[in-house]
């Protein structure tokens, strides 16, 4: 049985979806927001490392759960394996209201102008689908600004000569460097580099009714107990709900977008919190379920005109799955640098984003979030014993002396890295699950190798001892992960993209995507702020085309 029709159904209340809900609800449209997870609860605010989104060995505190969710991973040698959300191979982000932005590290990067024009700058790359974005940094600039002001970003780019032009300063002052960063700053500056504070979606001062950060050692992987860390759940969604015409339905798992015989999206089918099948009709549908799940939902939405899934007549849905290869170096200082004041990451270096001969894009380097003790047990120079008394001595001696510089490498999109739906494995609701296959492009490894060497050089110059690189592993691996992106590329040519430049699925006029799936390439930076800016961008164009009761 069908529910009463609304103007918009949005699937996914994450970083992208929450913003679209607010933009459309405040413009007067009636909105239903379907979210498979729940609101983060008071009890979820703990400091339990084994139950954190970063090391979810006992399960993901912010979803999805191991009981009802599965994925299939296809390995290099062709073998496959069913994986659980708490296992690394799942490439999880999150499943709760707020999505990944509840438990993220909150680094708030704008991509650089070059990141939108990789193909023009670097030319054709073999075995890749490298392309320019259909929009430029300048197009997105006002929406970056909007995200920075509505959600709240603390930063200071005085010392960052590499960023794109910005019209307004950051709304909040930057966080101060911690001890580790002060030391890195000195050395990096001496080396002719340009360190500056990492922009953060965290309050350095009280902002928009939320308090300033109280600096805990646990932040990334955890929800913020005082809401100093911004996501859609504690910023824009409350505004959307206050309009009275945005209903957030939690525990609701979308299974299919119904596309009629005229090629228009008519409704979204889902299972509600009691696992009952429901169908919500709407004038338009926005999918913001994250790069993996958005692709899966489109592929599971088969119709007469789109027998291979909504918007997939050219076989591009789910292709070009990207994330970030994370590389860098670590070492130890003579004196302790640890501070019982987190969350740790405060300094960035962008000298290696673009302009490096032989490389495509490069990546940023940052000092890192505090690793909690269990995570630290995996941080060892090569050859260091893993257990026994040596293990304990290492934990005791080095934990507080650790210095690290790490960063995300710009990945080169390739067609074979993809999300498809598995022909046999289904989740608890009987919906075919994501099947992840393909590997990163070889160029990513060159870049990773280069970037980790730079990190190593800085740490050595600082006088750190036992410095080791965590460079790219030599075995080609799948991309995706927490920075998943690219699976519904935006573009002007319907043959080589999934949506147009406004996030509208080619050929389905009232079906939009607004999340990391749209990213043509994923920058040498963490992607959340760009995803947020894109959500504002897509919303703007939906509103511009909205004529009272329907889309143009």
């Amino acid at each position, binding site marked *: 049985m069908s529910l009463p029709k609304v103007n918009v159904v949005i699937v996914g209340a994450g970083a992208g979806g929450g913003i679209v809900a607010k933009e459309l609800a405040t413009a007067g449209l009636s909105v239903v927001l379907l979210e498979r997870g729940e609101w983060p609860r008071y009890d979820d605010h703990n400091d339990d490392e084994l139950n954190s989104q970063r090391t979810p060995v006992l399960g993901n505190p912010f979803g999805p759960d191991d009981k009802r969710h599965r994925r299939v991973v296809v390995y290099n040698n062709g073998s496959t394996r069913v994986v659980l959300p708490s296992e690394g191979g799942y490439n999880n982000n999150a499943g709760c209201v707020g999505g990944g932005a509840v438990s993220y590290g909150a680094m708030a990067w704008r991509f650089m102008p070059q990141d939108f024009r990789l193909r023009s700058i670097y030319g054709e790359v073999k075995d890749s689908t490298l392309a320019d974005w259909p929009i430029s940094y300048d197009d997105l600039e006002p929406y970056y600004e909007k995200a920075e002001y509505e959600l709240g970003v603390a930063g200071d780019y005085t010392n960052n000569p590499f960023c794109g032009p910005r019209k307004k300063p950051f709304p909040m002052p930057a966080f101060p460097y911690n001890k580790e960063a002060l030391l890195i700053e000195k050395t990096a500056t001496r080396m002719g580099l340009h360190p500056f504070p990492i922009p953060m979606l965290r309050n350095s001062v009280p902002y928009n009714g939320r308090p300033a950060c109280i600096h805990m050692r646990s932040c990334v992987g955890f929800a913020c*107990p005082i809401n100093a860390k911004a996501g859609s759940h504690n910023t824009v969604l409350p505004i959307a709900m206050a309009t009275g015409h945005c209903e957030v339905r939690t525990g609701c798992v979308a299974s299919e977008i119904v596309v009629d015989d005229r090629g228009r999206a008519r409704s979204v089918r889902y299972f509600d919190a009691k696992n009952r099948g429901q169908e919500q009709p709407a004038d338009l549908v926005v999918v913001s379920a994250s790069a993996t799940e958005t692709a899966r939902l489109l592929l599971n939405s088969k119709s007469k005109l789109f027998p291979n899934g909504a918007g997939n007549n050219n076989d591009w849905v789910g292709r070009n799955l990207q994330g970030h290869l994370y590389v860098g170096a670590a070492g130890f200082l003579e004196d302790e640098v640890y501070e019982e004041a987190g969350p740790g990451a405060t300094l960035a270096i962008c000298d290696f984003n673009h302009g490096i001969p032989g490389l495509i894009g490069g990546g940023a380097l940052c000092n890192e979030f505090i690793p909690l003790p269990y995570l630290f047990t995996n941080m060892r120079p090569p050859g260091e014993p893993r257990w026994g008394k040596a293990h304990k001595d290492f934990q005791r001696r080095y934990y507080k002396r650790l210095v690290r510089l790490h960063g995300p490498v710009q990945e080169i999109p390739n067609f074979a890295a993809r999300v498809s739906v598995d022909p046999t494995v289904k989740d608890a609701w009987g919906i075919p699950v994501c099947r992840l296959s393909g590997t990163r492009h070889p160029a990513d490894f060159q870049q990773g190798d280069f970037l980790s060497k730079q990190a190593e050089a800085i740490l050595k110059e600082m006088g750190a001892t036992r410095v080791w690189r965590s460079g790219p592993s030599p075995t080609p691996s799948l991309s995706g992960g927490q920075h998943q992106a690219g699976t519904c590329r935006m573009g002007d040519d319907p043959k080589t993209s999934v949506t147009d430049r406004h996030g509208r699925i080619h050929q389905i006029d009232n079906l939009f995507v607004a999340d990391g799936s749209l990213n043509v390439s994923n920058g040498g930076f963490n992607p959340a702020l760009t995803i947020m800016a894109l959500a504002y961008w897509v919303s703007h164009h939906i509103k511009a085309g909205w004529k009272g009761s329907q889309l143009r």
Partner: protein
Amino acid sequence: MITPVSRRAAMKWAAAGTFGLAAGIGTTAGLARWIRTEPAPYRFFSEAEARLLIPICEQIIPRDDTPGATDAGVIFYIDRQLSSVFQRHQPTYRLGLDAFRKTCLQVYKSPFEQLEFARQTEALRLIESNKAPKELWGDRSQSAFFNLVLDHTKQGFYGSPRHGGNRDYASYRMMGLAYPNLIGQNRYAAGRPI
């Protein structure tokens, strides 16, 4: 009395295709034989298994001037997880412990528990590097078993006490960290206001 639950879970995972693949072991039918009836402090392990696993964990994180795995109650962490979120690892433990027990009897002519500390270390190095007699392990990976126990021991030692291990925040004390992490109370950096 716990086995029926475990067995059902194991069959479910077998159907889903994950079961045993990581370690390459286990048949679901075999699980039926593991029914335990006597009351015990453990939910999953038999007394004999626990007697074997405790010194293995102690080898991984031994007591010196600070507590080790036994003091911190790591066995209770592993036992509790194996009967809940780690049900999928039950066969790896059950079969792995059995093979390791036999390995020690064959190679060292003694139960692991009765070996000297240095000998115990040697025995674990053997399986860590897949060098124990192949016939005792069949197609099961010795190192995969060892690595799983290693990882779980570290989790039990460093994770939150609410999961059964890290008794009295032993590991946090050892590393000189404030414990527990009281929200909002650990924000004073040495000499620098935040």
